[in-house]
């Protein structure tokens, strides 16, 4: 489940207000109002960039993918019917942009790349302690395992959604998640 949607279950009034304001900005952006689109960008860029950063583990690439997400979102705004939250719609675009990058680079998410974590620097400098260790371990996961772990355990997608987004079978998604969790537990164990 999208984190915003899950929060809405706790604070429906607050989220509805945010999304109502966002609906207004979406409508203005659909009419070609670039300032309205900037409002949407400001409200959502942290979430989009966070996803791109964790999935790509490359700060420069993450910024490029974030930009591509908003370029594509602007282009596709006319196809956004408002049936889903704007943040959810944008999140799917971001996932597709990142996965499209993987695909264009010739990588397949269902390929098993090896049994060990790759040495990697943490991509999220703001966290400390165990979270810092976890970020570093996530960054070191093989691409397929990292993608599924981020989408399932950090972003809250179901295996069905991940299968739809990535094009892999549900069973593959489950296997990659299990593998990611095992590698992370091993990395975090004392």
């Amino acid at each position, binding site marked *: 489940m999208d984190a915003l949607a899950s929060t809405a279950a706790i604070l429906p009034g607050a989220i509805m207000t945010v999304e109502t304001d966002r609906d207004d900005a979406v409508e203005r952006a659909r009419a070609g109002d670039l300032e309205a689109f900037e409002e949407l960008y400001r409200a959502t*860029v942290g979430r989009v960039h*966070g996803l791109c950063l964790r999935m790509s583990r490359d700060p420069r690439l993450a910024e490029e993918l974030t930009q591509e997400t908003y370029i594509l979102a602007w282009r596709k705004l006319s196809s956004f019917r408002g049936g889903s939250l704007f943040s959810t719609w944008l999140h799917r675009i971001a996932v597709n942009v990142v996965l499209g990058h993987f695909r264009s680079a010739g990588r397949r998410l269902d390929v098993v790349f090896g049994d060990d974590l790759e040495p990697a620097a943490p991509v999220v400098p703001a966290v400390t302690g165990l979270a810092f260790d976890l970020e570093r371990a996530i960054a070191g996961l093989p691409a397929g395992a990292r993608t599924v772990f981020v989408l399932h355990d950090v972003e809250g997608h179901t295996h069905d959604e991940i299968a739809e987004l990535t094009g892999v079978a549900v069973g593959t998604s489950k296997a990659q998640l299990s593998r990611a969790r095992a590698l992370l537990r091993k990395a975090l164990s004392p």
Partner: protein
Amino acid sequence: MRCDEVRGLLDDHADGALAAPAAARVDEHLAGCRECSAELEELRRLLALAADLPHEIAPSRDLWPPIAARLGASREAVRGRLGGRWQWRLAAAAALVVVAGSLLIAYSLGRRHADVNLALARQASPVAVPASLGGSDFAVAEAELVEARDQLLAALDDRRDSMSPDTLRVVDDNLRLIDGAIGRISAALDADPLNPRLANRLAGAYRTQIELLQRATALPAEI
């Protein structure tokens, strides 16, 4: 249940994805097995830690200016989506493609009167760019080509309802890929503005994208 069977189900159990009878059997085993219980606890600690990771991570710099710069050129075209029919936009875009395309290709190939030729635009061998053609000439040609591209995009948007989802997916995927290439080449050109190979590649990327859009907007209705 044996330990190896239970451990194969712990991920689903922790996710609440097991059916009630299977979950009950796992719980029964866990009640009497310290090692498997410890496994589950360790897994739950990992999941709790992952769930607490920040979802929002601000980029190290403001990404809006480069996004706005790329979107700014299409602003008027997007406003134009609100009215009119796609056919006349297509005609206008086609005219722009010829004019701007010629300018950009002429720039990138070092010829002022080059034919609009896709093969030439994509040719692999680098061609010298004359120093006499300044960056502003290139910028004007590029902006006009971007406008032509955006008018074709608007025409494509107008036709989306008449195209199959599969076709649209293929077109959108390719547009996105070419956008990525344009972005990367543009960034490289910013750093090395007089590089003729990069100018040639940028011209080729724009032409490829416009050719794709021209073909997509010319497809017969599928629905």
